[in-house]
C-alpha cells in the first residue's frame, strides 16, 4: 500500500477511516491502525485533546525507514487544513505559551514505537516503568512525557539508538522527585530539552550519547549521569538546583564544555574515578555555590578546566534561567574570530 496521510481526533468523526478530518479516526482506530497498518511514509495528524488508552500501544513491530519515517504530528484542536500547515502545529509550554499538544493518557499502559518515527508536538502522561520507548533513528520534537507514578525508578522517555529529542520536556509529578530517569538515552542526542522534578535528568547509557543546550532543574539525584561508557558530549547545558550536576562515574573520552552549574547541593561534577582523558573547558560554577564543584576531577593543568568561570550567574528571576546584565556567564564562551 502507498503511504497515507491520516487524521485523528479524540472522538473521531464520520466513518472514522482517517482519510479526512470529517472522517477522522478516534483513539481506538488510531491504535489499531498504528499497531497493524502503519507503514513507511505514513503521516498521522493528531488533533489536540486527551486520548485515553485502554490497552498498551505496541507499534514496535511497525517500522518506518530512513527515507520514509512514520510521522505522528500533534496539531491544534479545530485544525481543518488538509494537510495542516506549520501554524496549525500544536505548541508546547516551554516558551510560556499555552500547551495545546494532544495528550496520550497512558496510565498503566505502555507505549512503544518501532524504528524511524517522527513524533512531533505530542504529550504523554504515564505510570509505566519504562514507557514512550523508541526504536532506532527516531526524532522527537516538542514532545513531553510526565511520569505520574509515585513509585521510584521509573522512566519518562526511553531513547533508542540514533534517536534525537529536540525541544522536549520530561518530568515527574512536580515536587515528588521520584522518577528514576527522565531521559534514558542509548546512543542518542538531546538538544534544547528540559528535565525537571525527578531523580536523574539524563541517563547516558551508551557510548556517544550527547546532551546539548539542555536545562535540568530540581533533580534529587543528578542532572546528567554518564554510565560506564565513553565518548559523551555534554555541551552548553544549564543545571540548576540539583543534588549533583554531572555524575561522570568513570566515563572516558567525554567532553564537558560550557555548562552552567548553579545550586547543586552535593557536587557540581563528580567522577568516582579521576579520568584525565576527559576534557573540561569554559564551564561555570564553584564550590561556594555547588558545595564541591570538581569532585574527582583534576585541578591541575593540563587536565583541569583552565577557563572555568565562577560566582553568582545572576539569573534574572524570570523563571527561565535567563542571565541578567553583568552575569559572568555572558560572553564567556569561545570568542571565535572567523576568517578576518
Amino acid at each position, binding site marked *: 500500500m502507498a503511504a497515507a496521510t491520516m487524521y485523528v481526533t*479524540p*472522538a473521531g468523526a464520520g466513518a472514522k477511516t482517517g482519510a479526512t478530518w470529517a472522517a477522522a479516526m478516534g*483513539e*481506538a482506530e488510531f491504535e489499531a491502525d498504528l499497531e497493524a497498518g502503519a507503514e513507511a511514509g505514513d503521516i498521522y495528524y493528531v488533533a489536540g*485533546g*486527551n*486520548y*485515553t*488508552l*485502554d*490497552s*498498551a500501544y*505496541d507499534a514496535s513491530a511497525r517500522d518506518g525507514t530512513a527515507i520514509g519515517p512514520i510521522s505522528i504530528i500533534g496539531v491544534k484542536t479545530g485544525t481543518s487544513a488538509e494537510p495542516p500547515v506549520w501554524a496549525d502545529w500544536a505548541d508546547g509550554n516551554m516558551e510560556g505559551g499555552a500547551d495545546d499538544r494532544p*495528550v496520550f*493518557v497512558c*496510565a*498503566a*499502559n*505502555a507505549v512503544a514505537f518501532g524504528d524511524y518515527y517522527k513524533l512531533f508536538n505530542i504529550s504523554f*502522561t504515564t*505510570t*509505566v*516503568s*519504562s514507557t514512550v520507548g523508541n526504536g532506532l533513528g527516531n526524532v522527537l520534537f516538542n514532545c513531553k512525557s510526565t511520569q*505520574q*507514578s*509515585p*513509585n*521510584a*525508578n521509573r*522512566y519518562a522517555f526511553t531513547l533508542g539508538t540514533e534517536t534525537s529529542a529536540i525541544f522536549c520536556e520530561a518530568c515527574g509529578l512536580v515536587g515528588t522527585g521520584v522518577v*528514576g530517569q527522565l531521559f534514558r538515552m*542509548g546512543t542518542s542526542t538531546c538538544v534544547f530539552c528540559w528535565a525537571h522534578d525527578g531523580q536523574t535528568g539524563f541517563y547516558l*547509557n*551508551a*557510548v556517544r550519547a550527547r546532551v546539548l543546550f539542555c536545562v535540568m532543574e530540581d533533580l534529587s539525584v543528578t542532572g546528567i549521569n554518564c554510565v560506564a*561508557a565513553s565518548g559523551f558530549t555534554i555541551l552548553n547545558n544549564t543545571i540548576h538546583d540539583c543534588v549533583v550536576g554531572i555524575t561522570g562515574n568513570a566515563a572516558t573520552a567525554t567532553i564537558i564544555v560550557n555548562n552552567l552549574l548553579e545550586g547543586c547541593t552535593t557536587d557540581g561534577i563528580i567522577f568516582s574515578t579521576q579520568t584525565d582523558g576527559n576534557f573540561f573547558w569554559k564551564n561555570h560554577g564553584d564550590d561556594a555555590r555547588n558545595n564541591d564543584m570538581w569532585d574527582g576531577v583534576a585541578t591541575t593543568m593540563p587536565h583541569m578546566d583552565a577557563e572555568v568561570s565562577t560566582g553568582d550567574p545572576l539569573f534574572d528571576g524570570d523563571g527561565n534561567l535567563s542571565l541578567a546584565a553583568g552575569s559572568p556567564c555572558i560572553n564567556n564562551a569561545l570568542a571565535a574570530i572567523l576568517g578576518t
Partner: protein
Amino acid sequence: MAMNEKYSYKDFTYKTFLDTKPEEWNDSEVICSCFYNEKPKSDSFPAGIKGVKFIRCNLDNIVIPKDCTVEGGCNRLIQVQKDGEDWLLDENLKPVEPLDKAQYIKLGLSISPVALPTSAKSVSVTQEKRQQLEDALQAQIKALEDAASWR
C-alpha cells in the same frame, strides 16, 4: 443520554471524586476519560451516583458504582509487584500475569507469579534485563571498534 462535558475526555489519573455531588454525574455519559488509581479496588466516585455510562474509559483499579454501566475501555485490577512492574491481579488481589506480558516474553522473563521475587527490587526486572542487554551490546561495540582501529 447526554455526554458529561465536565468529566469526559479528561485525565483524572490518581484523582478521586468522593466529595463531588452525585448530581454532577447522574444519568450522563462519561466518555474516554482516565480514572486510573494506584490502589486496586479504589472507590473513586461519590456514593449514590446512578445512571452513569462510562464509555471507553480507563477504570483500572476503580470500583464501578452499582447503578452505573461500562461500555468498552478497561477495568482491570493492577498493582506493582516486588519485581517493580505492574501485574494483573485476580479478584483476591493475587498477581496473575504481568500487564505488559509481551515485553516479558520478548525479554525472556518468566510470566509466572511463582517467579516473582520475595523482596522488592530497586530496579524493575525489565529495566534490569534491558540494562544487561545494553551492557552486552556496548561490550560488543567496543570489541568491534577495537578490532577495527587503525592500529
